[in-house]
């Protein structure tokens, strides 16, 4: 069998996936959703964000020190909760401070030094809660020390909006991937075309490879199509202000040393690898279950079960809790990933959750591809 046939078989495998009446409807729905997401992401408070944009940016680039904090406390009530369209310059900063310190005390009680100290205490407390080893603590202490302090303030609503778009990718793909791919193998059995394929020269190994490749191409298209629409619309309408700010402006208790832009890049890699993972799981289940509806149910059920367990299993059961967290795409593609301090590795060589999760997804995918090929080659030979 010449390799040039792979291209033709791949073309027809893609055609099998997309050439049905639901494809156009699904793409229109996806495009509409992505467009709305791009428009709405920075407009969560009506037109408040648009009207107050210039005011909120007025203190961008300022060091978070006593002087800036004094300006903030002078411009609002003592707890920093009353803001309006004309005095919202320090609103995000007040939220930032209240994320770190005790809610019950007036903001004026805190000097910059107290806030930085409370932040460090919170990080150490998180280390205890997550049952970090000595090596992991040393790792994060070194990271913390590498942070440039005092922090530079930057409003980051726009960059955070871009991050929110990436965060929603796994959920959208959870709906789209089973819709497009649950039939990839099961459909051949349902439509009784499986025996025809198996009686041809390219019907086994080559077809299996073409099906998996076609599934990955379709998923890549869906992810790029959806995210490109949302991100482009959001960027055009709202910009990417905060892209170069440190992630501590949105997640103050994180010791990660990265900018918002880097964080969005990491989240996209995780979301994309997670989508590939979902694709391969769907293909594998389609092969094993032979029933598209059962495939969809199992993918949804598995996804939600992992999500629920990742939140329910106590952190003290660290290996289980950690692996479930890593396997939970909703958590791994959220900015809350900045608070995941549990590392993978030993002896000073560690990977963070965001570094490891894509590798984990791709490794499991590779194992499922190999197992799936084994199942496919043996299937029907009863």
């Amino acid at each position, binding site marked *: *069998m*010449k390799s*040039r*046939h792979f291209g*033709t*078989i791949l073309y*027809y495998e893609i*055609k*099998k996936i997309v*050439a*049905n*009446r639901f494809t156009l409807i699904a793409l229109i729905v996806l495009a509409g959703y992505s467009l709305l997401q791009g428009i709405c992401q920075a407009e969560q408070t009506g037109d408040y964000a648009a009207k107050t944009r210039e005011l909120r940016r007025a203190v961008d680039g300022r060091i978070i020190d006593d002087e800036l904090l004094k300006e903030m406390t002078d411009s609002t009530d003592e707890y920093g909760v009353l803001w309006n369209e004309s005095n919202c310059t320090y609103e995000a900063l007040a939220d930032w401070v209240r994320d770190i310190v005790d809610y019950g005390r007036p903001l004026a009680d805190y000097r910059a030094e107290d806030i930085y100290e409370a932040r460090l205490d919170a990080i150490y407390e998180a280390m205890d809660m997550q049952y970090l080893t000595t090596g992991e603590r040393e790792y994060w202490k070194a990271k913390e020390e590498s942070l440039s302090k005092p922090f530079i303030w930057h409003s980051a609503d726009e960059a955070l909006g871009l991050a929110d778009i990436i965060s929603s990718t796994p959920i959208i793909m959870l709906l789209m991937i089973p819709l497009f791919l649950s039939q990839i193998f099961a459909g*051949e059995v349902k*439509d*009784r*075309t*499986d*025996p*025809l*394929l*198996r*009686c*041809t*020269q*390219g*019907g*086994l190994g*080559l*077809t299996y490879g073409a099906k998996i490749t076609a599934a990955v191409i379709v998923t890549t298209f869906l992810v790029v199509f959806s995210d490109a629409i949302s991100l482009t619309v959001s960027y055009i309408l709202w910009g990417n202000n905060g892209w170069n700010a440190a992630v501590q402006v949105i997640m103050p208790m994180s010791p990660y040393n990265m900018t918002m832009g880097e964080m969005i890049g990491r989240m996209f890699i995780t979301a994309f690898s997670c989508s590939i993972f979902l694709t391969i799981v769907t293909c594998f289940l389609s092969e094993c279950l032979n029933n598209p509806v059962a495939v969809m149910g199992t993918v949804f059920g598995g996804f939600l079960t992992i999500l629920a367990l990742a939140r329910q299993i106590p952190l003290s059961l660290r290996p289980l809790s950690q692996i479930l967290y890593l396997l939970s795409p909703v958590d791994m593609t959220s900015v809350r990933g900045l608070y995941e301090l549990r590392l993978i590795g030993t002896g000073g060589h560690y990977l963070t959750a965001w570094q490891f999760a894509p590798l984990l997804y791709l490794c499991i995918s590779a194992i499922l591809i190999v197992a799936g090929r084994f199942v496919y080659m043996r299937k*029907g*030979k*009863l």
Partner: protein
Amino acid sequence: MELKADMLTKQYKNKTAVDGLSFTLSKGVTGLLGANGAGKTTLMKMICGLLTPTDGKITYDGMEVSEEGYRNILGYLPQDFGYYPDFSGYDFLMYFAALKGLSRHDARVRTEELLELVALTDVARKKVRTYSGGMKQRLGIAQAILGRPEVLILDEPTAGLDPKERVRFRNLIEEIGKECIVLLSTHIVSDIEHIADNLIMMRSGHIIWQGNWSEEEGSLEDFYLREFGEDK
């Protein structure tokens, strides 16, 4: 050109679908006659390598049917012919041409030739879902002979064809049978009585008669009705 089955058995949990069959097929049309449940489809699936025999083996010129090379010379039309409803007839044949290893140019030429042969040229670009039962069956036949097979297995190929199409199909199979081994299963005697060079009759997993009926006296249909009267 010889397809040989030796003590072929297929056992399911509580049933022996095929029980110790031995036969040799050579160039020409062989009719496989038997009532529903006789084991015809199981036998054909084993010949196609889709089912593994519990015992015995099938070889084509010394090559086992489980070998990859065997699929190069195999053409198969199953009883329930499956198709891709959103493919056109042309796409369907082009896809299978690629699976059967034809070059793009050869695939195009062969596809057009076969569409002409099975009288589907006019509807070649229409989706298969819009085809009638007979048109789908003709497309299935075209798919089976696409790769110029040396072994052609046709499981109840005339199901769904109208009388006129049946005649066309018989002539087509007779022609193909001059060049390759054709095994055609049916429970309709008239489908094969004039074109089959040899016959195998099956009942309950066993061969009850095999040979060249033209050397026998009497009507094949009468013999068939006598043998399978209770099963029908």
